[in-house]
C-alpha cells in the first residue's frame, strides 16, 4: 500500500508539474496576436426554433458574445460577419432594443459602414414602431457621416412624429431642415419650438437659431436690394433708409432681438450684431 504522505507529495508534485507545463504551453501561443477567425451562425429562425422556448436567453447570450467578439481587436476579419450576427440576434428577438443600438454603433464607429448601420436601425424601427431613438440615431449618422441632409431630415421627421420623442429630436429636425437649405420652413419650426419651450435652455437654443436664420434671410434680402440700388444710382446707399426712399423696400427689418442690422456704406454689406456659425457642413 502506498503511504498517505507519499500520495500527498505525488499530488503536490503533479499539480506543480501541470502548472509548469501550462506555463510553457502559454509561451508558445500568442493569444492576442493578429489573426483571422471563422464564425458559423445558423439563421435567426433556425436558432429560434432550436432554442425551444428559450429564445430570449439565446438572443441575450448571442448579444453578450457579440460584445466580447467585437471588442477583440486582434481579430482582423471580425467585421466580415457583423451584419449577419446582428441580423440573427434581432431575428431571434425583434423587440430586443439594445442589439440595434450597440450593433449600429459598432457598424459606424468600428466598421465604418454607415449604410449597414442604417439597415439595422431601419429594422429596429420597423419592429418597434413606437420607439423614436432608432430613427434619431439613423438621422444623426446621416448628418454626421454621410452629410446627407435630406435623408437625415427624413429620419428626424419620423423620430419627432413618434410618441414620447424628446424635445431635442424636434430641434434636430428643425436644424436639418435649415441645413437642407429651407430657411423659411426652418424658421417656422424653430418659432414653434421657441413659443412652446419647456425650459430656459430650450428657449435660448431656439432663440439663437431664430436669430441666425432670420438674419440670414434678412441680410440676403437687404443685400439684394442694395445691389439693385447700386445698379440704379451707380453708388452704395449712404444708409439703409435710402432703400425706403428709393422705394426698394417698404420697411427695414430688424434682427430677432429687435435691433437694426449693421450697414457698411463703404462695401455695401449688411451684418447682424451677433454672428453664429451653425451651418457647419
Amino acid at each position: 500500500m502506498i503511504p498517505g504522505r507519499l500520495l500527498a507529495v505525488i499530488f503536490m508534485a503533479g499539480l506543480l508539474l501541470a502548472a509548469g507545463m501550462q506555463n510553457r504551453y502559454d509561451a508558445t501561443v500568442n493569444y492576442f496576436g493578429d489573426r483571422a477567425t471563422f464564425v458559423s451562425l445558423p439563421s435567426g429562425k433556425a436558432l429560434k426554433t432550436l432554442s425551444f422556448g428559450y429564445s430570449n436567453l439565446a438572443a441575450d447570450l448571442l448579444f453578450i458574445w457579440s460584445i466580447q467578439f467585437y471588442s477583440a481587436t486582434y481579430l482582423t476579419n471580425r467585421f466580415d460577419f457583423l451584419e449577419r450576427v446582428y441580423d440573427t440576434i434581432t431575428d431571434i428577438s425583434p423587440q430586443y432594443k439594445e442589439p440595434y443600438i450597440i450593433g449600429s454603433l459598432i457598424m459606424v464607429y468600428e466598421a465604418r459602414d454607415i449604410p449597414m448601420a442604417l439597415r439595422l436601425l431601419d429594422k429596429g424601427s420597423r419592429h418597434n414602431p413606437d420607439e423614436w431613438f432608432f430613427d434619431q440615431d439613423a438621422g444623426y449618422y446621416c448628418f454626421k457621416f454621410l452629410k446627407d441632409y435630406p435623408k437625415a431630415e427624413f429620419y428626424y421627421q419620423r423620430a419627432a412624429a413618434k410618441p414620447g420623442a424628446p424635445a431635442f429630436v424636434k430641434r434636430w429636425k428643425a436644424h436639418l431642415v435649415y441645413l437642407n437649405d429651407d430657411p423659411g420652413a426652418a424658421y417656422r419650426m424653430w418659432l414653434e419650438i421657441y413659443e412652446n419651450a419647456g425650459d430656459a435652455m430650450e428657449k435660448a437654443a431656439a432663440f439663437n437659431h431664430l436669430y441666425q436664420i432670420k438674419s440670414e434671410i434678412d441680410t440676403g434680402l437687404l443685400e439684394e436690394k442694395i445691389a439693385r440700388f447700386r445698379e440704379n444710382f451707380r453708388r452704395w446707399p449712404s444708409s439703409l433708409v435710402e432703400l425706403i426712399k428709393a422705394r426698394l423696400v417698404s420697411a427695414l427689418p430688424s434682427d430677432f432681438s429687435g435691433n437694426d442690422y449693421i450697414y457698411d456704406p463703404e462695401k455695401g454689406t449688411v451684418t447682424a450684431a451677433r454672428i453664429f456659425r451653425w451651418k457647419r457642413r
Partner: protein
Amino acid sequence: MKMSMKGIAINTFKESARNKMFYLLVFFGILFALSSKLISFLTLGDAMKVLKDTGLAAVNFFCVLIAIFTGINLVYKEIEKKTIFNILSKPVSRDQFIIGKFLGLALTMLTALAAMAGIFFLFVWMSGGGFDLKIILYFFMLFLELLVIVAISLLFSSFTTPILSFIFTVSLYLIGHIMWTFNEFKTVLRVPFWKHFMQGLYYLLPNLDKFNIKNEVVLNTAFNPWTILFSVLYALAYILALLAVTILIFRRREFQ
C-alpha cells in the same frame, strides 16, 4: 375530494419531497437564477432584461426537469416495487390512484416553483427591478405548463419504462415549444392528406409555447388578457384529456 385520493396525493408529495434529486434540482434552479446577476454584468444597456431573461429561464428549466424526473418514476416505481397491490387492495380505485398521483405531483411542482420563484422575485426586487407583478403572472403560466408536462409524464409512466417515458416526455416538451413551425410547414405541403395530417398533429400535440410569456415580461409589452384566458382553459382541457387517457390505459393494465 375523497380521503383515499387525498391520501395518495399527500403520499406522492411526501415521496417526491423525500427524493434527494428534488432538492438538488431546486438548489441548482435557485443557484442559476441568482447567477443571472453575473451574466447581466457582461451586457451593455438594459442589464435588468438580461437578469430577468436568465433567471426566468433557469427557474423554467429546472422546474421542467423536476416535473419530468418525478413524473416518469412515480407510477412505474409502484408497479416495480409491487406496492401497487397494497394500494389497490384497499378501497382505492385505479382512477383515484391516477388522479391522486397527479394531484400529488402538482403539489410537488407548486412547492418547487414557489421556492424558486419566491427567491427570484425577491432577488429582482433587491437588484432594483421593483415589484414586477408580471413575473408572478409568468410563474402562474409556467405552473400551468408544468401541470401539462406532469400529466404527460404520468401518462407515459402508466404503461412504459422510465427511460422510454423520459424520451417521450422530453420529445413532447421540445415539440410543444416549436408548434408554430407546424403552421409554417403546412403551407409548403401540397398534398391535402398531409396538410390535414399536419393539422391533426397541430391540435393533438401539446402547444406549450402559449404558456411562454417571457417576452412580454422582460420587454414589458402589453398582455392580451384573452390570450391568457384561452391558455388557462387550454391547459385545463388538455390536462383533463391526458388524465382521461391515462386512466383508460391504467384500467386495462394487468399487474403480475
